[in-house]
């Protein structure tokens, strides 16, 4: 089939790549000139393990053709995917209007995450222009860091669809990814959008809940990691999203929860729980800073701290709302010198730091730790899991390890002659 994908998002890149890989002819149209330039040079907008190569393959095969968003499809596509960043409702509406006015745009599949009711609004706009036009909602459930996998081997697909024509087309497009069992849940546009936000809400709640428990563990003298495993073994709870740590970030999860809080506020319900969830998370982002502050009784001037991992999660180069940013700002404000290492996110971090403050970025994690008064592990990239402790100890001024993801074994680190502080242990 002929498919057009609009947007500069990871969701757009994954959708375009996956559709091209299964044999469709895909036009991917981006908005930003910078994105267009990258695509023209054959580079993906988002780099993730596995996805990079697949993307290059599709370009080479000629099934994936990059373009600019102002160009309308040349041949009438069978489906158009809208995958704009969250909240960019206006862009989606403008485009939908143009598509509906052109002849035969096929089924419009909205992946853009917006407030509940946004898809209905889009639908009304296109129906006004062309009563036969069809719009479905396929909210983006991609997990960054594991994006291609979560799109092509999904546990669940939310499909907001109020017309049979739309459903059968989406089912056909997703058929290669829906083979083991049917995981497509069909519901109204509104329900699909709300389900997506509600999922984000409960995941965020689990994390903040665990962070509260971790805080208690410290006062009670128990190890939260032991408690976490015990909790996860209960089938009513399950294992995922139970890791306490130094907070969650990223463009998706927190903005979805914010959208939910917003919706609750507007509808005059009580947003109490979710607001607390977000507050707890913001507080948690500073937990390593607080441990460092306490360690030095608030005298931080002239100290130096090394950060390992600044991406908001392993596998991505993005730093949007990442806990590392809050830590860096807090350290700067106390006159602390900051060095950082990250396998992928240093360019994004440098961008963010521009005009904000001084950072030393290191290509080698041990160089970052040189002369440091503490090492903060913030993003649990695999290469950090088993460091050379003696090498670290030699190079640091004070061998204080602040483990924001509880990936080390406290007793072992201490045996190596370093000082260890984790979250809730």
């Amino acid at each position: 089939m002929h498919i057009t994908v609009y947007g500069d998002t990871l969701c757009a890149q994954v959708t375009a790549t996956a559709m091209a890989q299964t044999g469709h002819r895909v036009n991917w149209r981006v908005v930003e000139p910078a994105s267009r330039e990258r695509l023209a040079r054959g580079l993906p907008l988002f780099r993730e393990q596995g996805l990079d190569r697949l993307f290059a393959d599709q370009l080479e095969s000629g099934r994936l053709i990059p373009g600019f968003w102002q160009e309308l499809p040349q041949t009438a596509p069978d489906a158009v995917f809208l995958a704009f960043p969250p909240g960019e409702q206006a862009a989606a509406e403008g485009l939908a209007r143009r598509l509906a006015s052109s002849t035969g745009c096929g089924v419009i599949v909205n992946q853009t995450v917006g407030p509940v009711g946004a898809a209905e609004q889009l639908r009304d706009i296109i129906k006004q222009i062309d009563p036969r036009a069809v719009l479905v909602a396929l909210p983006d459930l991609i997990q960054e860091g594991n994006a291609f996998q979560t799109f092509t081997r999904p546990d669940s697909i939310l499909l907001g669809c109020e017309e049979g024509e739309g459903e059968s087309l989406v089912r056909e497009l997703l058929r290669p990814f829906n083979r083991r069992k049917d995981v497509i849940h069909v519901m109204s546009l509104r329900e699909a959008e709300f389900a997506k936000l509600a999922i984000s809400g409960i995941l965020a709640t689990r994390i903040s809940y665990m962070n509260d428990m971790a805080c208690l563990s410290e006062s009670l003298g128990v190890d939260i990691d032991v408690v976490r495993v015990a909790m996860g073994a209960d089938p009513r709870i399950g294992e995922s999203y139970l890791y306490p740590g130094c907070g969650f970030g990223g463009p998706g999860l927190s903005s979805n929860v914010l959208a939910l809080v917003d919706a609750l506020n507007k509808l005059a319900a009580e947003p109490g729980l979710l607001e607390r969830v977000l507050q707890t998370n913001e507080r948690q982002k500073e937990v390593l800073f607080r441990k460092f502050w306490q360690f030095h009784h608030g005298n931080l001037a002239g100290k130096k701290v090394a950060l390992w991992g600044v991406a908001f999660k392993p596998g991505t180069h993005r730093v949007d709302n990442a806990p590392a940013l809050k830590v860096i700002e807090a350290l700067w404000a106390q006159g602390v010198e900051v060095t950082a290492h990250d396998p992928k996110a240093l360019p994004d971090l440098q961008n963010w730091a521009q005009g904000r403050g001084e950072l030393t970025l290191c290509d080698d994690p041990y160089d970052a730790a040189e002369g440091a008064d503490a090492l903060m592990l913030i993003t649990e990239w695999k290469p950090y899991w088993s460091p050379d402790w003696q090498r670290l100890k030699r190079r640091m001024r004070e061998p204080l390890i602040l483990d924001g993801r509880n990936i080390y074994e406290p007793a072992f680190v201490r045996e190596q002659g370093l000082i260890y502080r984790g979250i809730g242990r």
Partner: protein
Amino acid sequence: MVPDQDVLSISSLWSQLTQCAAQEKALHLADLFEADEQRFERFNIDACGLLADFSKQRMSDEARDLLVALAEERQLRHWLDALFDGAEVNCTEGRAAKHWCLREEAGHAPQVHEQLDAMERMVERILKGHWRGVLGDAITDVVNVGVGGSDLGPLMAAFALQCSLPPEGQARPRIHFASSMDGSQVSQVLQELNPRTTLFLVSSKSFTTVDTLHNAKTARQWLARGLGLDYASESLLRCHFIGISANPRRMAEWGIMPANQLQFWDWVGGRYSLWSAIGLPIALTVGMDGFREMLGGAHAMDLHCRSMPWQKNLPVMLALVDVWNINFLKIPARAVLPYDGRLKHLPAYLEQLEMESNGKSVSRAGEPLDYDTCPVIWGEVGPNAQHAFFQLLHQGTQPIACEFLMTARRYTEDMHSDAAVELEGQHALANANCLAQSRLLALGERALDPKVALPAYKRYRGNQPSTTLVLDELSPGTLGALLAMYEHKVFVQAVIWGINPFDQWGVEMGKLIATDMLAVLTDPDNAEGLDASSQALARHIARKQKSRD
């Protein structure tokens, strides 16, 4: 140089004014307005974002001219020069009163701006969430511990300005005030706050004020307990206490860390100190830019006061009107009535500013006075006062002067956009009530339909004089101008009356006697030799406390 001064009542102008008042007593405000449509034009001043309407005062042109001549005769020009030259205008304490210096530009007051800059650094750290408690948490609550001038001014102004938006990208902490000696506020505040995120400002000019030091000690104990630290812990003091005082030695003795000390000076009276670091809660409310804007508004009023002829001079005319009312029309009280709820704490602030300054009965030369000085001042948010004491203003037996305050613009900020229409309606309603009340008080039933005959208990005598002050809007700048206007007005009155407005000896003795009373309460047998009433009360309390055990 401080000019010499005679007692006021020997002035020939005094007897002329007395005569003039006797003639005018028969005049009703309604007659004055009926006889002269231009009255407002000649009895208003519009300056520094404030309009003052004196036309509803029971004052003829002749009376006003005599009062202006009286100001001249009392050498007001010389006295203002003395004040602004930093001469020793506070004769009983042998020092200058240079609160105006706190709003001078940097070039003229380097010492002041050094402290303002230190204050700015603290404000910035707190508003950006970079001031940390002992456990590393950002501060969310700030408690101002102070009393009198260290409480009323900051409380009034911070409350008045809290509706303005906090500075961009900054989170305003919640600000609390604890002043009362008995601990009622501090106990309330401590119940609600988290010691990890609470910062205390201990404000006291002398740093010996018993009320404040007891509240501060209670707070320090609470922090030490809550955070598991020693009372003497250095990090506790470094992370949770800022001191503001003119006495750095005392501050340091109490435990305020050098980096956390903000200073002002002997030459700033407590009730004139909100322009100094004592205004920290105000700066935390509107940001340092807003605070400097407030200083700017006050500075503009300083210049106005020094440069305008008396008839066009806001503080001078306000003062002369008050002198006329109490000394010649014998009106013993003035009600302060803000029709904008944000000025809720203004009456209490003015009660201190005016009554502590001018509640005196001895001349600068130490002679007893044979005329009245400061009237009794009290007040309340206008619309609420309408449901409380306006009955007495309209139909009581006393003549009372009123001061109405209102704002022309309100609810124009973005933050009100959702409910702006309704709120603007409420603002209009309050302003309508303000105009209605001043009109009815002035004209009495002549403001009503003359054809309707009223029974005696429904009649309105009218002829209650009032001044109406209209602020363009309530902003840091206009608030600064308003408060500086009152400060100078108080000084002008003191010049006319020949008294020192900058001391407060009348409040000293009570503090001393209280120390002895503490011994009486601990053991009523110590009451021997006291008056019968005090003895009986001490015994009664002791009995009641015992019966509870």
